[in-house]
């Protein structure tokens, strides 16, 4: 009997943990997923920094001659600069895309309207309670909304 209780409690606990993502209210909208191309560029940049440090060490240890060292260092610097520029361009493009998406959502009324101060879900109720999380909501005048000025 005690064995069943132990296992039962354990099962209830793990099932509860596993179901948590479905049950908890979403407090904030999920942030943008890390862009894989951007991650690859960051990784590439790190690898170049490491390569430059290793080259400097190898030069100090006498494994690389002066002329070779200067040439390769310049090569790495050029590659790092290109990678950083590519990263900048990609980040700027991502920012512009996010702005455009946000503006489109506002125009279509998806972002507009009042939002709950607790869980940030859109609500269109008169003053009362948020239907998502049940928090008290003092009405549309009490909250600054996105798209309210359209």
């Amino acid at each position, binding site marked *: 009997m005690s064995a069943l209780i132990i296992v039962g409690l354990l099962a209830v606990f793990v099932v509860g943990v596993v179901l*948590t*993502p479905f049950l908890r209210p979403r407090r904030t909208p999920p942030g943008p997923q890390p862009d894989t191309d951007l*991650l690859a560029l960051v990784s590439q940049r790190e690898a170049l920094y490491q390569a430059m440090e290793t080259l400097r*060490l190898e030069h*100090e240890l*006498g494994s690389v001659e002066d002329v070779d060292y200067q040439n390769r260092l310049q090569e790495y610097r050029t590659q790092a600069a290109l990678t950083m520029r590519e990263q900048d361009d990609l980040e700027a493009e991502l920012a512009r895309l996010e702005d455009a998406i946000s503006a489109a959502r506002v125009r279509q009324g998806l972002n507009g309207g009042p939002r709950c101060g607790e869980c940030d879900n859109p609500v269109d109720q008169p003053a009362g309670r948020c239907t998502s999380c049940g928090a008290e909501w003092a009405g549309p005048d009490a909250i600054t909304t996105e798209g309210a000025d359209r």
Partner: protein
Amino acid sequence: MADVGTATLILALGLAAYAAIASGLGQWRRVPEMVVSGRYATYTLPLVMGVSIAALVAAFVTHDFGIRYVAGNSNLALDPWLTWVALYAGNEGSLLFIAFIFSVLAAVAVWKAPAGVRPALPHTNVVLMLILLFYVGVMLTMANPFFELAAAPPDGQGINPLLTHPGMFLHPPVQMAGLIGVGIPFAFAMGHLMAGQPGDDWVLVARTWGLVVWAVLTGGLLLGAWWAYTILGWGGYWAWDPVENGALLPWLPMTAFIHSVMVQRRRGIFRMWNVALIILAWGFAMYGMFMNRGGPIPSVHSFGQSTMGWIFLIFLAVNLFAAFALFYWRYRMLRSARPLDSPLSREAAFLLNNLLFLLVAFVTLWGVVYPLISQAFQGVMVTVGRPYYDAIAGPLFLALVALMGVGPLLPWRRASRRTLARTLRLPMGVALAMAAALFVLGVRSPIPLLAFSVCGLVAAGILREWARGTRARRSRSGESYPVAFGRLVASNRPRYGGYIVHLAIVMLAFSITGSSFYSVQRDFSLEVGERAALGRYEVEYLGASTYPGPDRLEQRAEVQVYRDGRPVYRLSPGYVFYPAFSMAAARAGIRSSVVEDVYIIASEFSDDGRAIFRIHLNPLVLWMWISGPLMLVGTVVALWPERARVQRPTAGRQLRERALASRM
């Protein structure tokens, strides 16, 4: 306890299946809650498996002989501290132990996965959970550690006497953890392929786990060698036994992998190599499991009663097929970003490193499978012994040690012949001087002469790098030598941690060369008071005593050892006989020094008062045991996290942050 154990295994099976399905389906259908739920299921598995293991431990502690596994691996006379060994002494318990360890490793791997591999993490989790699903499924269907007997016997059978050696507290759990741990970097590699994620981020996390697993595998091998040396009573530490080879096989591609991933990280090449190496390492790890559990070739290391080998063979085949199918599917993604710059470069050295390790692996594998092939085709099982491995694997290992000395001295991309010659001058000089000195001292055989010289070359190269690096740093910073050296290591941890490991490998090679070529042994039959001479030593037999125990009969001889005519110490060789197992285990009398081991076995005590002794003189063996902790130190240094680089905001990042701020 049996109910708790079985129920938790069923719960674990369900959780692992759910985690795999939720992660895969959630990623495919873009339902983030499902993906997170799958991850959470992975996090709960160590708890569930932990309760299962605790149930088995409780069964041992309470002598619940109604459980077949407890009855078969313990008895009322079992020392409590042996409960830990009894846990994994048998097939079923070891499977439970392996599943528990893997559940912990998988949870940590998923929890601590860096940002770079997050997009592929759901796929990685699928692979991890499918592996765990297999082990839990095998336990529930074929090898349940909680299987109950119809009637509980009054006492158990007891534990295998060979497992009561202190080495058994560490060797099997470490070895098993290493073998199953290979699944972690394998899962990251497969996750990367399944996700089709560009970039080489997965190699960072795979390298970290690869180093950890490599260190554990190395520890398992060395501990096993130590156990064999001290308890099997034949004076050696490695017999090229099929199960020993099964443990060595994954270590070989794993060693190549942890080096080769550095090239991918640094240069964007060797992508196909690294995926192939980790697949092979995992395949060999599963092959080791197969050999240990009902494999076709008997071994002192096997779970002799198991007949489950076939299910592990099928699992191995499925894994290899799926992995290589993924490899073929993502072939284009794995093409190298650029060609090799020069054959005289560190990249080329790593390429040669990969080839040599694979060659050794296939030579070893051939030695393991040849008996089966000969039986299948010729009707007779031809065993492959030590001469085959010494003749073929020996030179390959020596070539690897030599490469270990030259490779780190080569720069990345390309080396000029002039700088290479300058860099190698000192190590070559030391090697030649060492060879000359050894020749003068009487070492005339070419192979040990060459091997010792290569060890000298490698050690000199490493010390030269340390000295030059320290001097260069000191000239820049004005620090004292010790501080400069410490900061040099701290600022280049992977490199200098690797050097420490290489130094440990040199010790290992030094030890193996000395003990393989210069061990001597002789048998003596002595009366009480009689002496025998071997080399500088004399051994005097003082007498024997018998110690009966509840489950054993122990006989020990007392011998006085003299060196150069002077008494130095006493040893107590003997053996223990276990009637319940009809087995005798040797207790060697061993005295180690940095020069040589005196190793005495008392193999027979006759009624007329005589005893038969086998006396070994094994040179340099102690260096093998010293190399283990040093390898661990080097691995920890190599793995120690470096300070995160501070990122200055780029123009694009500033633009994005301004856009985010304007929306708040």
